[in-house]
């Protein structure tokens, strides 16, 4: 009898461990492609996340409303939203103008490089893996798709939407994540390279030609050559240069790390 119970327990323990090893090893191979298991977990977890985040935001709003005079607080909220919407439109119009100026002698040109999809807020950010990914409160219900771009209020690049999208939430891979990468220009298109994350607060360009002059403080923008990110979206500033014999390595600190990530804009590159 005792032997039976021991065998039964051993079987249960080994089954659970085997299942987890199976999931782990299959996901090492698949990496970022979404599996049915991940989608199922997301579909269960994301409603809870969204409800909790919305409840706390609602309570926080009501709490602030209690201390502010009601009319003043509502006016402030309305003006803030208007400013945010105007900033968005302003940036879209500026980029349209830039393209029209540059290609004014061409006909049938596409003046818009990207299209605004929706606004979003961060629902979850794992503090133990800060530079990996975030979860936002927009999913397939708000027409979010893979590879859509995420920028902050100042149109500084944060990352792109990965495969893990549920109806209510989506996972955004940050540009500081080592698994990603993007084409970028340094210092007003002096040099182009492939910018990768390092799972910390800095991104880097590797294997750049040493002879090109780059200095600390130069700005880095997207080049658009990777086919995912449109051109001229600000990324960060050069903070460190390591010169080798024939090549140099440049460290870039992303702009989005200078401010809290809260209000986000989801945009899509127009092909």
């Amino acid at each position: 009898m005792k032997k039976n119970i021991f065998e039964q327990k051993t079987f249960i323990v080994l089954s659970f461990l085997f299942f987890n090893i199976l999931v782990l090893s299959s996901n090492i191979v698949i990496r970022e492609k979404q599996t049915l298991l991940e989608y199922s977990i997301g579909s269960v977890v994301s409603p809870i996340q969204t409800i909790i985040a919305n409840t706390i935001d609602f309570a926080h709003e009501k709490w602030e409303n209690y201390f502010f005079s009601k009319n003043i607080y509502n006016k402030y909220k309305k003006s803030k939203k208007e400013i945010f919407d105007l900033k968005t439109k302003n940036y879209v119009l500026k980029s349209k103008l830039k393209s029209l100026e540059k290609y004014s002698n061409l006909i049938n040109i596409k003046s818009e490089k990207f299209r605004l999809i929706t606004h979003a807020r961060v629902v979850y950010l794992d503090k133990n893996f800060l530079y990996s990914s975030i979860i936002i409160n927009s999913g397939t219900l708000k027409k979010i798709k893979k590879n859509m771009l995420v920028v902050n209020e100042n149109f500084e690049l944060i990352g792109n939407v990965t495969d893990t999208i549920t109806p209510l939430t989506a996972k955004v891979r940050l540009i500081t994540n080592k698994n990603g990468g993007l084409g970028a220009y340094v210092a007003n298109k002096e040099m182009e390279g492939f910018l990768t994350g390092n799972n910390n607060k800095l991104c880097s360009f590797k294997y750049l030609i040493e002879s090109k002059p780059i200095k600390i403080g130069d700005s880095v923008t997207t080049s658009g050559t990777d086919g995912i990110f449109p051109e001229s979206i600000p990324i960060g500033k050069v903070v460190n240069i390591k010169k080798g014999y024939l090549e140099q390595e440049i460290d870039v600190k992303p702009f989005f790390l200078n401010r809290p990530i809260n209000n986000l804009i989801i945009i899509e590159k127009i092909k």
Partner: protein
Amino acid sequence: MKTKIKPFLVLILICLHFFQNKYIASTWFSIDFTYLIIIFVALKSSILKTGFTATSIGLMNDFLSGGILGVFGFSRTLISFIVKGLLVFIDLKKGFYVFMIITISLSASNLMSNFLMYLILDYPINLSFVLLQPVFTGLTGYFILKSSYIKKQLDVY
């Protein structure tokens, strides 16, 4: 006598976990409330329930952390079975032992997960994740288990 963990305790711990990660800005201070759920289930439930809870919570943590699915699932499940085996020998009335078992087991689980993330995704080893989070979680578990109501629910006397 088998006791059931009240669902509201589980819900409160999950809410606290999401609240903490969204609204508390500090990077060195964090408490793994979901791990406390595993410990409370391991205290008095069967091995099947312990394994199922640890796997589910581990997979949820995998989804939220943005890493590879299965890393936390494996480490939490393995540690939960070890903890379940050890709990038989520990006097749960003494708060110090409760604190030590939570801290050491979570530290081991986090170290295992972080090491797997380092091997697979080249993530750096995060000392606050491996050392500080278990200490804060252990203290939280100790204070929760000090409550006579929780002790009654978990049949820990």
